[in-house]
């Protein structure tokens, strides 16, 4: 198994490298000069512009910059953000926690809500509850998440006043330590739900169809014939078999969450990596942008690997032989 994992990781290396080179080159070919944004909204002298350009190594041709970038990357240095004027590693470290918290909560919501919804729908196929769940899932899947976010703010923050509209904690808060961590909770609800909404819809739909497939298997008839309780049949026989496509969807669609977080973090002023990515693109902050995309590609590669391993554990037919 370890050999398999190592092999998979080795295979991922060129992918990650490709992502870095591709993104690094592509954004530099895009129109828009970061120096014009750095020197501010007032005519800077040419001398000053030249100096800023040189200070951040932007006076070199793209291949030279790429080579330098890869070289420092190999030494574990992610570079210096010129828009934020601080090391990229530090910057991302500050913002990584909030994004992880948001993504995991959204993922948790999706699993805890999406799968039971799908099970209920499959169990009641053709009845009202199935119909409601199906329409709900379709609506959920086709709702843009930033719009959903805005709607949640209007309803739960502005109109009802139940939850805060933005940020991670109250601007006036003086709490520290555990108290500060607990304060985050009410702030997490709306963005996590907005981010997880499409995922809930996706999971409930996949669960429903996988359950229906599994329900029609002969083994289910056998289990029922043995006199097992319906609950037991559903959980031990149906859901277990239906788990394969569900796990696949969860793992392979993790990218959806990462992409969604760029929008949701902006809508809810959530200080995460997604928003940092968005800002770094508009400011042409190449080092930050490349580092985040690299991180995203690594995350996706690892998520896919874990999915495959879980898959193998669930299904004896799939083994990481060779």
């Amino acid at each position, binding site marked *: 198994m370890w050999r398999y994992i190592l092999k998979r990781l080795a295979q991922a290396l060129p992918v990650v490298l490709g992502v870095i080179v591709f993104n690094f080159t592509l954004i530099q070919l*895009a*129109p*828009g*000069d*970061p120096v*014009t*944004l*750095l*020197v*501010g*909204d*007032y*005519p*800077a*002298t*040419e001398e*000053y*512009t030249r*100096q*800023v350009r040189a*200070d951040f190594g932007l006076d070199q041709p793209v291949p030279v910059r790429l080579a330098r970038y890869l070289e420092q990357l190999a030494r574990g240095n992610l570079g*210096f953000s010129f*828009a*934020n*004027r*601080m090391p990229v590693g530090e*910057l991302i470290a*500050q*913002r990584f926690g*909030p994004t992880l918290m948001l993504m995991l909560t959204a993922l948790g919501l999706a699993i805890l809500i999406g799968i039971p919804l799908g099970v209920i729908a499959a169990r009641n196929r053709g009845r009202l509850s199935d119909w409601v769940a199906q329409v709900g899932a379709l609506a959920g899947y086709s709702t843009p998440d930033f719009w959903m976010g*805005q709607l949640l*703010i209007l309803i739960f*923050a*502005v109109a009802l*006043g139940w939850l*805060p*509209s*933005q*940020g*991670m904690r*109250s*601007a*006036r808060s003086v709490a520290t330590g555990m108290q500060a961590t607990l304060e985050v909770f009410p702030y997490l609800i709306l963005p996590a739900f907005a981010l997880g909404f499409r995922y809930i819809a996706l999971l409930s739909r996949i669960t429903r169809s996988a359950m229906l497939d599994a329900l029609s298997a002969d083994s289910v008839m056998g289990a029922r014939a043995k006199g097992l309780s319906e609950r037991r049949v559903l959980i031990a026989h149906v859901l277990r078999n239906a788990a394969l496509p569900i796990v696949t969807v969860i793992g392979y669609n993790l990218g959806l969450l990462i992409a969604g977080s760029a929008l949701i973090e*902006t*809508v*809810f*002023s959530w*200080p*995460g990596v997604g*928003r*940092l990515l968005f*800002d770094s693109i*508009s*400011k*042409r902050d190449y080092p930050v942008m490349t580092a985040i995309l690299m991180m995203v590609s690594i995350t996706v590669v690892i998520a896919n690997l874990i999915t495959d391993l879980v898959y193998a554990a669930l299904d004896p037919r799939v083994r990481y032989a060779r």
Partner: protein
Amino acid sequence: MKKLTRRTFLKVSAGGAAAAGLAACTPAAPAAPAATAAPAAATAVPAGPARGGTAVIVMDSDPDTLNLGVTSNYSSGDVGAKLYNGLIWVDTNFGIKPSLAESWTISPDAKVYTFKLRQGVTWHDGKPFTSADAVYTFQEILGKFHPRSQALVKRMKSIEAPDANTLVITLVDPYAPLLLQLNVFEAPMLPKHLFDGQGDVLKNPAGLKPIGTGPYKFVEWTKGASVKLARYENYWEKGKPYLDNLVFPIIPQAANRGTALETGEADFLASFYLPLTDVERLSKSDKLNQKRGIAFPAIYFMMMNNATPALAKKEARQAIAFAVDRARIITQANAGIGRIGRGPFGDGFKWLLDPAVDYSKMYPRDVAKAKSLLDAAGVAAAADGTRAKLRLVVDSARAPFVTAAQIIKENLKEIGIEVEVQAVERAVMTQKVYTDRDYDLTLQSFVSSGDPAIGYHRLYVTTTTRVASTNATGYSNTVVDGLFAKAAVTPDQGARAALYVEAQKILADEMPTLVLYDDDTVNFASKKLAGVFGAIDVRDRWEDVSLTK
């Protein structure tokens, strides 16, 4: 050197002159600072404003840096104005008030400025502030890194510190807006001991953990979330600041900034961050005070690329001025906020206005007249009625510009000009307009920073360098250049006005750029805040702000 008193000087200085001019034009102007700076009266506590509490000031993005000496970024200025001091500050009537400079004298030839610096001022790390800090700040930081003040420092022949509390600035030529430009945004004083010999100024840690002499000291900056400051107990203005803490949450989504005020999560929202579409809604809130029109003048305009064949002749540009419905732009694109552009400088500086130059009279909307001017310019109609195809480039993040562009497109269609609106990211817009000049029309805005010589000359002077926020039209008139150059070095305001009047006549005729409207800022503050809006820039003078119960 003959000494002038401050009072005498104010009469001839830019700021004072502007104030005098303003006062003359609008004798009934309300005394804004006095009106808002008396919170104690309401609470009947004779001891003065209440102390304590936290005020929450909304921002739209992280500051570029908290070293205010190397940036003109708005958010950096917002936080920086509380952390640092300039030598002076500017009140709502353009009046120049002492800050770190207690007093000053000016030589009769208006070239030598001698500042008496305040004694007993300390940096947030406890070290004393001296003239050596001031000299270092000008020479090594502002002169080399500040986007606006670099040019100012180049006008200085020498910057000297004869003793610890005296600063002498000698100019090459007189420069009218000098004092005004010594405010905290243009010339914040920085601690020499943290920069001298510490390597790259742009990468100095003091940019992230700043030390200033201002009323609030730095506590924490969580990127993407907030910046926190706390009262500096040893601030030189005894008893101030009143607030314990200032917090600046970063709210990138425009619509959510107003929401934060409505829900009480925030207390203050400056015009700069406010989407105009929210003004009407926020105006109805009984929790908020609204303040209109205090800011350094700023104009919104459409540059016309003089290198585009269809725009090369002045008649063609005049035709566009006749065709564009500027009143509709203000109403529909700008939520009714703004004053219709009166002339090449708008109407923000009352003292330099020429009664004869008024675009509403010179260029009223007149399609027939516009068409005949296009004929005169040789921009003839093809068989299908089309005279020209022009690209109108705007920054897609500026919603009012995107709407205005659609209105202009409709307007120009009436005179046979097809407009293709190109709404692009700011980085792309900057490159297309300023670096490549690959555009025909573009919507932009410039802030005057208090004097036309600082902020408006750049719109019309001959510009060969392709730098952002300059004249990208290619328009060049040596007479205008000469008038501007002279106006910048003429200390007497009346004499300056005469020069500007002459320049305005030429510009109104040659129309290199059409001024659409003047900024009319709308700021919102929680009714709990007292003492806000004391300075012309709403980000300044938060040492005077307090919270009522």
